[in-house]
């Protein structure tokens, strides 16, 4: 399904632009410019407003991202539980820094704020799925699972 079809599915939902953006990202992992322009048309809004929505919410990306989007929580409970060491281990394992993507098209690293799994800090998510009580030692195993 391409973005035109997805947008058409949500056209009749009042305020459905955010739901439509979620659905597009589910397929493409980001929101291409053409999709944002098309969304403005479908929902009868100026392009500026559609772009405003796409860039307001941290889960939406207007830049292409790789197959596995890894987000590391850096909120206070994860911070004191050692999130910085997990970040360092991920950067080392993948050979990239936070906010960038691997050349093989497999991984993108992003920061996030609290993901609500605070019983088991530090927490990372991969494509929305939480991984709990993460330690630097667990990183290579988690990455291998995704390959």
């Amino acid at each position, binding site marked *: 399904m391409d973005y035109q079809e997805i947008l058409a599915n949500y056209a009749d939902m009042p*305020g459905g632009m955010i739901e439509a953006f979620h659905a597009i990202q589910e397929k493409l992992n980001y929101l291409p410019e053409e999709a944002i322009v098309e969304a403005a048309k479908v929902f009868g809004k100026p392009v500026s407003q559609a772009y*405003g929505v796409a860039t307001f919410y941290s889960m*939406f990306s207007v830049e292409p991202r790789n197959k596995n989007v890894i987000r590391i929580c850096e909120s*206070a409970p994860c911070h004191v539980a050692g999130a910085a060491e997990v970040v360092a281990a991920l950067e080392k394992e993948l050979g990239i820094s936070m906010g960038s993507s691997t050349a093989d098209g497999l991984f993108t690293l992003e920061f996030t704020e*609290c993901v609500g799994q605070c019983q*088991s800090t530090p927490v990372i998510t991969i494509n929305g799925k939480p991984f709990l009580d993460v330690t630097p030692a667990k990183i290579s195993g988690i990455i291998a699972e995704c390959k």
Partner: protein
Amino acid sequence: MAEEMRIVLRNYGKIDPLKIDDYIAVGGYNSLNKARSMSNPDLINEVKASNLRGRGGAGFNCGMKWNFAYQAQADQKYVICNADEGEPGTYKDRLIMENDPHTLLEGMAICAYAIGATQGFIYCRGEYPSVAKTLKQAIAQAKEKGVLGDFTIEVRLGAGAYVCGEETALIESIEGKRGEPRIKPPFPPVIGLWGKPTIVNNVETFANIPVIVEKGSAWYAAIGTPSYPGTKVVTLTGDVANKTFFEVPTSTTIREVIFQFGGGIANGKGFKAVQIGGTSGAFIPAANLDTPIGFDAMTAIGAALGSGAVFVLDESRDLVDVTARIAKFFAHESCGKCAPCREGTMRVHDLMDKINAGKGVSADIALLNKLGRVMSYSCLCGLGQAAPSPVLSTIEHFSADYNAKLM
């Protein structure tokens, strides 16, 4: 010795959350039937008399709020559940929705009947895709059984914006826009979603409703602290032995939460500070540990109950480092609509980073105090108003941590 008391988590682990028959077997949806046999004013008065106050952070009397929407004249009214719990360290609403979704639906349906609404929305945070799935399944089951009558509920997914926990920002987001708070008044019970009267309550607030209708307002009002009766789900994080959750009466003290339920400080260390209510809460020193976790008692010590998150720090922690991290959070999450918050959170972050890096001077602390005070009364919404409280409270109670890092 304080004891746990489960009202909103009464079915936790006892029923299969994905089976509506399990919920019905333990008396589920009886309260909705009972509510529908009452007149709207009688039902609203019952909720008002229970003195249930919002579990989302503002602590407003729930029945009173419902009455505003009931009295508003409109062709359409809405019921919204705020399931956008974004306060770091908080996962109470997730527990309720994952383990007992029907109690939320029942609470919303009772509210819908009370105010005369036929359409409801659950605004679930984007970080909880599996919860949204559970809710959709529960809604489909309730529809199939016909228990909700003419009330329909739709789930909308947030997309990672902390400010959308603010009710008017949340409404903007359901309308498909940027989640920027509206100027109040008018308040949502008068002019809310698509300009119609709207009730926005938190998950935990709605989960209390079926029990209040079942057991009566007098029963509920007698639990915990009289001015903020009932229970509160607390989630324990940081340097506490038991990083888990409890539901306790609101008369329980902070000391009991940390040292009795939480098993004390992890690794045999000493207590330094606790931040309650999420990342926007004040840091509380040992001297105030005997404060009950009621709304007004917490306000009286310059703190807030907020979401009920309990973030414990041991004696080895550097509060300047933790507060600098929190300052970054607010600089990131400020929506940018009002200048005091947009510029203020950025400046607070700059100053905290400067001090944390060992480059600060005492004049920076004076600046932080002044800026924080200005933000607390000039920001448009609760985000900016509460953002300085971790900074102001650590400067007040833990000045040694700051002084140790000054040039």
